[in-house]
């Protein structure tokens, strides 16, 4: 059943892509700043967090913007996918009521749009690497890509479920907003992974943190772009940021996160297939 459903979505892949282009076009065409808007968002986050954590709180992380952006950009993709994916079916209500097509393309298109935005925003990260003359560690490219894939699949799974939930209960969106706030701060994006990790390891609970697939994505991305696991001792105190482990270890946690994401996606697809038929009358 799930396979048939996937095949159907695959047949409508051009619609998926057309919807993504529509979203991008409508967003960027009708505004004067256009594509700059998509860069403004991470830049504002960057400035605020830089001021708060580096300047005011003196977190001692050298080249903090590089570290921050490595984790923040994937997060923005994830939250963007869910924020647009949750209302995707209700927002296209007239369409859903009048034309048949696999409804899953609506939340999936929201994920696609978020992915395109992510790749546009990577230019900010690249710029920061150039500005700070920082060298990533390409050995960790594969774990980082797997980690990203895990996040995308998980975002797709949640977008599918939440888009259906939002048809039944229109205040799902509020719940998503609150959940995203909590999830953001539970993921080591603006602070270093090692801080809570060490505290948990002492109690034998270090694995808890790795259960969060977004943490895995975050630290694999940080490992790739920040290029090292600790703050360089010449400039700082040699403080540990993320696990100083091999490529294989990172590969392992990334694959685990991907497995979690794929399982969630399979379940979400089954849930969606069961509810899909009722969507037109519930809107």
């Amino acid at each position, binding site marked *: 059943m799930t396979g048939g459903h996937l095949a159907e979505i695959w*047949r*409508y892949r*051009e*619609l998926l892509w*057309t*919807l993504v282009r*529509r979203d991008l*076009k*409508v967003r960027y*065409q*009708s505004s004067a700043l256009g594509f700059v808007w998509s860069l403004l968002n991470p830049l504002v986050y960057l400035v605020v967090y830089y001021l708060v954590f580096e300047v005011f709180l003196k977190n001692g992380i050298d080249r903090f913007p590089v570290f921050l952006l490595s984790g923040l950009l994937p997060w923005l993709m994830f939250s963007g996918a869910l924020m647009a994916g949750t209302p995707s079916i209700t927002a*296209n209500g*007239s*369409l*859903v*009521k*009048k*034309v*048949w*097509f696999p409804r899953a393309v609506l939340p999936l298109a929201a994920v696609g749009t978020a992915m395109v935005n992510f790749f546009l925003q990577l230019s900010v990260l690249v710029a920061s690497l150039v500005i700070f003359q920082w060298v990533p560690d390409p050995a960790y490219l594969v774990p980082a890509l797997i980690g990203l894939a895990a996040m995308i699949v998980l975002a797709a799974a949640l977008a599918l479920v939440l888009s259906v939930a939002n048809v039944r*209960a*229109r*205040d*799902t969106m509020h*719940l998503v907003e609150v959940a995203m706030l909590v999830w953001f701060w539970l993921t080591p994006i603006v602070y270093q992974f090692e801080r809570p990790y060490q505290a948990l390891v002492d109690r034998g609970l270090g694995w808890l943190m790795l259960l969060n697939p977004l943490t895995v994505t975050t630290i694999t991305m940080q490992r790739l772009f920040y290029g090292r696991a600790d703050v360089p001792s010449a400039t700082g105190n040699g403080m540990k940021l993320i696990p100083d482990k091999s490529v294989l270890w990172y590969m392992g946690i990334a694959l685990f996160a991907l497995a979690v994401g794929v399982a969630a996606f399979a379940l979400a697809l089954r849930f969606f297939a069961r509810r*899909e*038929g*009722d969507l*037109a*009358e*519930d809107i």
Partner: protein
Amino acid sequence: MGSAIRLDGVSKSFLIGSDRPASLKERIVRGRRSTSGSAPFWALRDVDLAIETWQTVGLLGHNGSGKSTLLKVVGGILSPTKGTVERHGRIASLLELGAGFHPDLTGRENVFLNGAILGLSQQELRSRFDAIVEFAEIEQFIDTPVRSYSSGMYMRLGFAVAVNVDPDILLIDEVLSVGDETFQRKCLDRVRQFQKDGRTIVVVTHSADLLRQIADSVAVLDGGRLVAYGPPGEAIRSFREHLLERQLDRQAVVDERHAQEIPESAATDAGGASVGTRQTATEARGSTQEGNRDLAVRIDSIELLHDRLAERSYLLPGEGLTIAVHYTCRERIDDVTIGLSIVNLADGKELFGTNTEYLDAPLAYLEGSGTVCFDLAAVPLLDGTFAVTVGIVSRDFGRVYDWSEQRHRFEVMNPSRSVGVVALPVTVSQPADR
């Protein structure tokens, strides 16, 4: 050839909207009991229907009969509560033209978006793009955002995309009535082309005439049940009978003299006809109005009678009709004639008008109470709802004693597949000596 669409025991129920919790908050506050109290509304009940690939099937029913729900179930937009739906082939549904158009995108971009929604690949769309634009007749506006389109342009573009989807099964809901006459004809031509190509069409409409023209079969729905399925003539007749049953109280053939005007919707089930102008009937009689009657003679009641009145209220083409005018006089009237006019309610055109003078059957006088009957030996009308106007006037039309303007109606039902208003007696032969 197999069935293109097959419905087996399809039922569809809806929860009545207001009883459904609309938010998480409401669910929590109202708890689990919230939905248990509301009775489901059955929009479709146990519908069995098989539509062959070459068929054009019309769905007919009054508002709320379930015909649009059935079309949505066939199209997969709604899933049946019970029963199964099978369909074979690519479906394009014209339930709403231009559904999914984005106002900020240009016509060109919307063609690609709408086409993708209807299941076309971008490559297919590119190859059909010119045909779509040409069909929609909006060449010079194709790169303008559709927000600035007129509603006609909007719908033309929507129709053009949908018919160029090249579907195996085309579902149409009342959309053939959009646009001006030329465009409608173009749409109908396209539908006929589909039929020639041997494709399946399911069309929902109120227009019995349209179905007679294009449908092979008509399915009639009433209260969610399939009550008739067969050749258009038969099915349409059955539909009218159901409609008449429902409205018997409002549409009695014998009307009280001062009863309220029959609501238009009740009187004309088909075609969305309007009463049209009344002037034709009255002008012929000398611009009289009901207002300036002097009531020296009163029309007490008018009866429309025919032989089969006991079993059905409508006429079949060619059957006779008696129009009985019951009157009461205040005093003996010598200068009197009674006029009669029959108007087609679909367009307001007068079909027939006469009076006792024209008929060379002058009335000597009227006195007391009595009845004057007009016996129409045959009513050679084919189909429609017709109104009768009766006037009692002086021979020079100078005085209007009483006037009954279109208060009485009768229906003629077409059992055949011929179309039009008049039933001409036709036989077909092939003379051998030519």
